[in-house]
Each structure stands twice: as C-alpha cells, then as structure tokens.
C-alpha cells in the first residue's frame, strides 16, 4: 500500500495538472463557440507556472499579512478537499464544509486587497453563499436515498443498486447547477463577473495569482470528481477522465452562450432550481 503522504502529493499534482488542462479545455470550447481561435488547451497550466516567476507587486492598500495568508488558506482548503476525496474517500459532509470555507476565502481575499473590485466581490461572496444551499440539499437527498454520506460507501451502494443519476436525476441536475456556478465566466459567476475585472483575484499579482490559479485548478478537478463519484459510482479512471472532459465541454458551451446574470437574479435562479429539484426528488423518493 502506498504511503499516505506520497498518495496525497501525487493526488494534489494530478488534480492540479488535470484540473488546469480541463480549465484550458473549457476556455478553448468557449473561444470556438464564439468563433475565436482561443489559446491552446495547455495555456492555463503554463500560465499558472509562469506567474511564479513574474514580478509581484503588493498594493499599498492591502492588509499585507492577510492578503498573502488568504492565498495559502485557499490552497490548504483544497488540499484538504483532495485528502477527503480521492485519497481517503471520506465523508461528503466535509466536502460541504470545504465549500463553506471556500466562500469565506473568496470573501476575505476580496476584502484584504483594499481594491473596490475586491470589496464588491467580497460582498457578493456573502450574497452568493445562499447558492451553496443546493449542495446541502443534494447531500440530504443522497442520505435519504442511500443512508450514508461516506464516499466509499456511496461507491459500493452504486455498484449494487446502479448509478444514482438514474434514481435521482433531479438531485444530479441540482449538483450540475453548482458545477455551472463554479465554472469560469458562467452566468451565475457574480464574484468574478467582468464588471469586477476578476473580482476577489483582481489585486493578486505575480506568483500570488499563479498560486490562486493552482488552487482553482485543484478545486475544479475536485468538484467534477465529487459529482462523478456521487452520481455515477465506480466508473474507473477512464470513466472519470471522459466524464470530466465531457462536463468541461458542456460548461464551456453554457458559459460561451449565456450572459452573466446580475447578483439577485443569479442567486434567485439557483435557489429556484434547488427548490424545484428538491421537491421533485422528495416526490420521486416517496413514490
């Protein structure tokens, strides 16, 4: 059996490399849909590394220790995500907790820079926290259906009873809405909307930006991993790769063809989808 620390390091590296390639693919799909050539798929990965060697400016208006620490915390949060997910296949509740902390990090990264774009993004992060409710509803529904929130138990359950996407399609739609809301340039992306430049990341330059991009890649990989494992079960490495590529292409298409919603419409749309899917799922469970 592989050493735990080696397992963690390998999984974090896989999450970074594959996650950044998927984000590159997402960007490429967006460009092709909009009839632009777009950057190469590997560009996001190269950018993440390149920024580590660029000059880094620290804004006069920033709360410096916090401004740097929040980037480290962001990374720590998603290293925890990798440990809970692919490494230990532990509880989904911890994944929910990680998303809650992710929102807090968005909030604090925005407020620490002193930039008005960051501050507005920070306010919107609080506002959009309501959009995390669908994830909690999905977890509750999964528990009602399977009686467990342990990832490895869920995989075993689906190996016997078939994938959950067939018995809980509305819950899967709800989770997919969450995936859309986390993809770049998506219609619900109010914390990084273009009117805020890049939102809470606007004032993080140089290697700090590279560090944020590293964590964004890990976060994107983890989100897709959790979705595929929760709703498709034991699909193997090849299934995971194909699933992640397909979801990135679909979200790229959605991001390219939909306008960004304003904050209240964004949150209300997500909550409306959550309510409809939750009620529908409960009715299906009762039937």
């Amino acid at each position, binding site marked *: 059996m592989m050493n735990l620390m080696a397992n*963690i390091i390998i999984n974090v590296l896989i999450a970074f490399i594959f996650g950044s390639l998927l984000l590159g693919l997402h960007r490429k799909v967006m460009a092709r849909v909009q009839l632009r050539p777009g950057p190469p798929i590997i560009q996001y990965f190269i950018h993440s590394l390149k920024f580590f*060697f660029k*000059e880094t400016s620290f804004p006069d208006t920033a709360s410096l220790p916090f401004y*740097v620490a929040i980037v*480290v915390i962001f990374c*720590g949060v998603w290293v925890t995500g990798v440990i809970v997910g692919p490494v230990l296949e532990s509880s989904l509740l911890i994944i929910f907790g990680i998303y809650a902390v992710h929102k807090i990090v968005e909030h604090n990264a925005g407020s620490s820079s002193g930039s008005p774009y960051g501050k507005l993004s920070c306010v919107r992060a609080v506002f959009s926290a309501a959009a995390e409710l669908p994830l909690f509803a999905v977890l509750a529904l999964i528990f009602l259906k399977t009686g467990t929130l342990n990832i490895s138990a869920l995989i075993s359950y689906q190996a016997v009873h078939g994938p959950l996407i067939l018995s809980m399609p509305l819950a899967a739609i709800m989770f997919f809405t969450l995936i859309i809301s986390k993809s770049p340039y998506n219609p619900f992306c109010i914390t990084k909307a273009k009117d805020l430049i890049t939102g809470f990341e606007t004032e993080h330059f140089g290697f700090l930006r590279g560090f944020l991009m590293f964590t964004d890649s890990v976060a994107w990989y983890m989100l897709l991993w959790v979705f595929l494992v929760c709703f498709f079960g034991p699909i193997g490495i090849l299934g995971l790769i194909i699933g992640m590529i397909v979801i990135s292409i679909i979200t790229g298409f959605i991001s390219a063809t939909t306008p960004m919603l304003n904050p209240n419409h964004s949150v209300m749309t997500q909550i409306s989808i959550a309510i409809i899917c939750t009620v529908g799922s409960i009715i299906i469970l009762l039937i």
Partner: protein
Amino acid sequence: MNKIKIISYILLVASLLGIICGFFTSEYVTLALAIICIPLFILSFGLLNMAKPTKDEMEERVQEPFTGY
C-alpha cells in the same frame, strides 16, 4: 539578503522537513502536515522565485503617483 528572503528560506526548509516527516508519522499527523506544509512550501517557493525589480525600477514603482480609487 532581505527579511522576506530569509523568512522564505526558513519556510521552505521547514515545510520541506514537515513533508518529509509526514512520510513516517501516524495518519492524523500526516494529514495535518500535508494540509499545512504543502501550501507553505508553494508559498515560500513563489516568494523565492518571483522576479524582483531593479533598483531604478523599484524607485519608479514607489514614486508612481497614486491615482486613487
């Protein structure tokens, strides 16, 4: 050698030692070391490798008028 560079070197060595220790410790200690040391290692790596402006450029950057928000 300035203060940031010294702190970065200390952080780099400490986080690397933490990661190496994580190979031989019990499960919970390994998890804690991974969550703390991996981000700190990347941070110190970034602080050491980021490009620094030359002295003239540094003055230009500092003296640039603050346009305000």
